[in-house]
């Protein structure tokens, strides 16, 4: 999601200001979420009308602030906003009278991996709140590669898979992706031919294509670049690097689209 689109608001109720809470806030994808921490009733003006999730980060002090807890419970109930709870088993047990189980979307019992907590919340919101995800079509004849790409990018993007060039062309006619990650070397119809097919169809010609190549020598990379793809990824790249590359690709592209729109208006 680009900066000019509305972000999704998440409110975290927590009294402490330690490393764990900053880590929790940091783990949310800033391109998609606006995260605010509130620690008292004096801060409820930070709760946006468009809040889409509440996270209760339980500790002793928060449990003592029944006014704040009840306020959040009522807001979540009235507006049907999902509520997530992080705490140790005793703490979670102690709020059961205030927060009925049907109000709590997910509970995370300590000890927890904060990254897993955020991934779960991310996933829940993507599935239930209708956050629009960009669609990536990954094309590769290797199921190992396709499944890996889905694993690397699937929590943030909707990843469609095609295991052949022909399957890719068919898929594009059904669902237009925002980006195609295309293997260069495939049997029957290779990446070069798939790209040529896409570029020759007026309706699809502007879909960005990033090549995925296992070949790292200069000559091979020049061959790939001659086809004028929108980028290329090496199969030897680590997952975080692939993810960063794709995120940056979309950020740049969205910024460019925004500037084109502003120029036209």
């Amino acid at each position, binding site marked *: 999601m680009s900066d000019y689109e509305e972000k999704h608001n998440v409110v975290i109720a927590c009294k402490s200001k330690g490393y764990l809470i900053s880590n929790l806030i940091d783990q949310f994808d800033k391109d998609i979420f606006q995260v605010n921490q509130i620690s008292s009733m004096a801060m409820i003006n930070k709760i946006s009308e468009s809040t889409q999730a509440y996270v209760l980060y339980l500790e002793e002090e928060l449990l003592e602030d029944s006014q704040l807890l009840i306020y959040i419970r009522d807001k979540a109930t009235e507006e049907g906003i999902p509520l997530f709870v992080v705490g140790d088993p005793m703490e979670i047990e102690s709020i059961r009278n205030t927060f009925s189980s049907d109000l709590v979307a997910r509970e995370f019992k300590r000890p927890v991996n904060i990254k897993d907590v955020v991934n779960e919340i991310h996933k829940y919101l993507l599935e239930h709140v209708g956050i629009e995800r960009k669609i990536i079509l990954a094309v590769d*004849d*290797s199921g*190992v590669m396709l499944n*890996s790409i889905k694993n690397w990018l699937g929590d943030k993007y909707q990843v469609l898979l095609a295991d052949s060039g022909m399957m890719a062309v068919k898929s594009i006619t059904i669902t237009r992706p925002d980006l195609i990650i295309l293997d260069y070397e495939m049997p029957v119809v290779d990446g070069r031919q798939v790209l040529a097919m896409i570029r020759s169809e007026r309706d699809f010609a502007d879909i960005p294509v990033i090549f995925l190549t*296992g070949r790292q020598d200069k000559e091979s990379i020049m061959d790939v670049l001659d086809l004028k793809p929108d980028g290329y990824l090496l*199969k*030897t790249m*680590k*997952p975080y690097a692939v993810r960063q590359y794709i995120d940056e690709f979309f950020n740049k592209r969205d910024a460019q689209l925004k500037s084109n729109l502003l120029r036209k208006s």
Partner: protein
Amino acid sequence: MAYNTDELNVQEGLEYSMDNVDFYKEILETYMEETTDQIKQMDEYLAAGNMPEYATLVHAVKSGSRLIGAAALGEDAFALEQKSKADDIDFVRANHDNLKAHVDVVFEAIRGYIAEIS
């Protein structure tokens, strides 16, 4: 360790699986199925002397092997990829069975690892 760690670097494979052991296990199973099919097809292409198609398949074996953490097998596949692209069928004929034997060793390591985590 009940499996050959020289042939299967689990730490590296897990890195490509975002440290998710369940997912890594799935990927290993997919890899074994897929590589078995690829080797069968490579047998046929080699018998027919079709080096371009052989090269495409051995390239896929190379990429898949590297992704699961079987770098040594990836290197063998890479050598065959280079030679098949250069249409050096004699080299491919002389080394194809070695690649198959190496695949079996990696499969054995995978089975050992899966048994260990199950």
